[in-house]
């Protein structure tokens, strides 16, 4: 056996895919953690389509996990695959379309039986054709796993559960990754069950060593460390970062957090994660529905705590009547909407930037509310802290628009230094002498927050219009107009608390790309490539959707064409046109997946060619 060749590459995208029961998510996460620890930049894209476990082997049951890793900083899931691991024919069928020509396709040949081909709706064996177009590596993973475990006292069903670990071991060899992380992880997970632990460790090795021996795999790859800013890192998914942000807000603001939530995909993880954070003082309350969840959060805010809700589209709709009460009573509240494909139940597990206009306009009458959106998984943490700070400072509900892709994809995240986090302890109003419930701070226009328990500040508020001076119920005509204006002015005035936009590229020119939310990585990637091809294009990325940063209008005016890529039918573009009267153009992709770099690049190219 000759020593194999090692090739250096900059960038690899691999997707693990198999049946829902095959453990593909765990496999992908292990590969991701290991890869991050090695020092590559990583970005992941999990894909678990079916909410219900479909019958094994069917197309509906396929679960996938994509890892894009690189020796350069890179924050987009890439569009195409260098390598695909397909544990069964259904996985192959669902994913083969994304593999680059001549890419690596590793299959578990044991599962390519007639019955499985039928379940995957293959009319004939697909392999002969695929062998022409890809490097198909056919491995009898099931058989090899069983063989490796023949001395271990487990049922064959149990042994077969290790198949994914075999595949993982093989890819570790293929991309020269160390096995320590996974070994430690297996130890933690199966420490109590020696036989299972041993089986997994053995299989991991078996997969790795097969790489060394298998002739069909003549090359392995090295991807060097990325040049990454110094610091301490961890791999983080958006929902995790959101949960951490919520817990951190309680600490930094020295005020308990009360989460009212009702399970809904893809937001449920946040509730689940926070339920484990009891020792951080977080109270979670699984409510009977989203309306109650919002009521609980607003009740908590009235009582002087940090009320927060996590939900997704259909639940966010249901909360709006109560959000409107929070607008009217000017109570702090943070709403996190992990957007998903719609309308209606839509595509619950898929990504969409669906709810921007809903956040702005989904309540009866004019009801202004600030809206923020994170641009990467780690940014969820930062944005959530910002949301709490603004909510309390301005006494207002604030919406954070996360989404199903940010929620579940991961990236290496540089941990903030504790000292760098802004401490902003909540200061309730305590002084009975100076108290009046709607007496506003002259600068922020915020009213005072005096929760029950504060002697001398007893007061009563509600959803009926209030007197500008006293806060009592008022049906007066002119008072109503005045209150409308002041509510609007308060939110508009928050612009002074929002940093100016930084422009990526020249400050004026032919083409500006305007993005928001999860598309930042893909847009940056497309722009980088466009520049490499000699095109001149700039971009800005909005994290504040209401109010807009102060310099947005100025920037827009500097460009001949403005293109707004969105995973919706054109929501931000609508706002930009209305507010700034600029001919911004929509670039909509509503296909339940992240923005594709090459498609956007092509669009940019077409435009700039047009202009040329």
């Amino acid at each position: 056996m000759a020593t194999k060749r090692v090739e250096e590459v900059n960038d690899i995208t691999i997707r693990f895919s198999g049946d829902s029961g095959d453990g593909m998510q765990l496999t992908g996460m292990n590969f991701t953690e290991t890869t991050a620890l090695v020092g590559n930049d990583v970005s992941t894209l999990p894909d678990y389509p079916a909410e219900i476990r479909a019958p094994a082997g069917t197309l509906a049951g396929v679960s996938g996990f994509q890892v894009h890793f690189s020796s350069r900083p890179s924050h987009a899931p890439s569009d195409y695959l260098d390598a695909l691991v397909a544990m069964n024919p259904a996985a192959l069928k669902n994913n083969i379309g994304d593999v680059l020509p001549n890419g690596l396709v590793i299959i578990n040949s044991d599962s390519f039986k007639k019955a499985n081909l039928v379940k995957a709706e293959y009319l004939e064996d697909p392999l002969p054709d695929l062998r022409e177009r890809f490097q198909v590596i056919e491995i009898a993973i099931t058989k090899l796993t069983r063989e490796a475990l023949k001395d271990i006292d487990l049922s064959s069903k149990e042994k077969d559960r290790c198949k994914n670990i075999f595949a993982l071991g093989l890819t570790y060899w293929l991309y020269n990754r160390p096995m320590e992380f996974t070994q430690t992880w297996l130890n933690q997970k199966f420490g109590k069950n020696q036989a299972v632990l041993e089986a997994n460790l053995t299989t991991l090795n078996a997969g790795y060593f097969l790489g060394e021996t298998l002739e069909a795999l003549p090359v392995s790859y090295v991807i060097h460390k990325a040049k990454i800013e110094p610091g301490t890192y961890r791999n983080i998914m958006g929902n995790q970062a959101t949960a951490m942000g919520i817990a951190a807000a309680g600490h930094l603001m020295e005020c308990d957090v009360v989460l009212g939530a009702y399970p809904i995909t893809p937001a449920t993880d946040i509730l689940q994660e926070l339920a484990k954070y009891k020792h951080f003082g977080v109270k979670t309350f699984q409510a009977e529905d989203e309306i109650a969840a919002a009521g609980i959060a607003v009740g908590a805010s009235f009582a002087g705590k940090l009320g927060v809700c996590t939900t997704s589209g259909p639940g966010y709709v249901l909360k709006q009547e109560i959000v409107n009460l929070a607008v009217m009573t000017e109570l702090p509240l943070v709403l996190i909407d992990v957007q998903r494909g719609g309308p209606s139940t839509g595509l619950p597990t898929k990504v969409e930037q669906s709810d921007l206009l809903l956040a702005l306009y989904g309540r009866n009458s004019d009801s202004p509310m600030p809206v923020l959106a994170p641009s990467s998984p780690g940014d969820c943490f930062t944005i959530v802290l910002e949301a709490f700070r603004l909510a309390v400072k301005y006494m207002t509900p604030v919406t954070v628009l996360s989404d199903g892709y940010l929620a579940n994809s991961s990236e290496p995240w540089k941990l903030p230094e504790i000292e760098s986090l802004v401490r902003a302890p909540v200061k309730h109003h305590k002084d009975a002498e100076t108290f009046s419930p709607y007496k506003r701070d002259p600068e922020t226009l915020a009213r005072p927050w005096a929760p029950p328990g504060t002697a001398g500040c007893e007061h009563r508020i509600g959803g009926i219009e209030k007197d500008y001076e006293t806060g009592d119920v008022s049906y007066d005509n002119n008072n109503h107009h005045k209150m409308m204006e002041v509510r609007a002015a308060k939110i508009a005035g928050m612009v002074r608390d929002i940093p100016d936009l930084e422009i990526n590229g020249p400050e004026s020119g032919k083409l500006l790309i305007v993005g928001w939310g999860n598309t930042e990585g893909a847009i940056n990637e497309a722009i980088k490539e466009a520049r490499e091809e000699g095109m001149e294009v700039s971009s800005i990325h909005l994290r504040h959707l209401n109010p807009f940063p102060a310099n947005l209008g100025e920037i827009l005016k500097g460009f001949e064409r403005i293109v707004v890529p969105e995973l919706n039918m054109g929501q931000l573009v609508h706002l930009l046109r209305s507010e700034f009267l600029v001919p911004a153009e929509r670039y909509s992709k509503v296909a339940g997946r992240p923005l594709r770099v090459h498609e956007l690049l092509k669009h940019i190219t077409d435009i700039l060619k047009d202009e040329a």
Partner: protein
Amino acid sequence: MAETIQLTRKDFVSDQDVRWCPGCGDYAILSSIQKLMPELGVPKEDILFISGIGCSSRFPYYMNTYGFHTVHGRAPAFASGAIVSNPDLSVWLITGDGDGLSIGGNHLLHTLRRNLNMQILLFNNRIYGLTKGQYSPTSKEGTKAKTTPDGSIDHPVCPATFALGSGATFVARTVDTDLKHMSMVFKRAAEHPGAAFVEIFQNCVIFNDKEWEEIEDKKTRPDAALKLEHGEPLVWGSSGNRKGIKMRNGIVSVIELSDDDDPAEKGIRIHDERMPTPGYATILSSLTRPDYPMPIGVLRAVESSVYEDDLIGQIDAAKEQRGEGTLEDLLYSGDTWTVE
């Protein structure tokens, strides 16, 4: 706090003009609550009245305590949020038959079964007052109201039976014209740990006048209502018209008693608020006029764990076991690595 003992009824009267129709039963309820407050010995600033929308739900504006007039039907959610945030508060939820049982039935169900510590006062006038006279879920079948010119066809829900079916630990009934009884029931409710549900028969003079006349009127009340008292037999009726209730295998029968019959001897059921399951109280709550008396007072009062106590217990236990979490723990947990 010693000074709270000196509070008087006036301390609980807010500066807002009361805007119910003259003659509305809500006035008496308000006044009975304002009178009771000083007796409870809770400082004003620790008292919170929360309501939905309806005539009854204007109540908080008139109490000189903290008050939150929220949205239609959802007051239990706001109250739940407030009490888990600050379990020291004395939380009073004010709702109506429409607010609490039409749009808000589900929140009531879940708040009752969770047994969060609050008093829930449901003003049952069997009509929508604020929106001017549509039938409500408690309106009797055949009610001709503005949306049912030919008579309503729904079978009404019985608030107490519903509360019992929802697992309420405290269920009581009282009447807007009987100040003493109201006061007793409200006080019992305030003392009950957990959710205390009280239905108040309330007269809407404008849209459903005299709905409860028999029970509201002092003269007819003794023969129309059965005042429940724990450990006492199920006996009612004015002198010469005394009756008692027997239960056998779940079947209720009314027994005539002479004024000096010993009810126990006659096999009359002794009232027991503390029956572990809701069956017995449901038998009582389902009794209807004119065949049976209308039981008022405390139908059920059992002890059970209180949601926010358990929640705080879990938080304390977690802090004890895992140590109070710090920002460092939060961020630097899990697998990290350092790039230099």
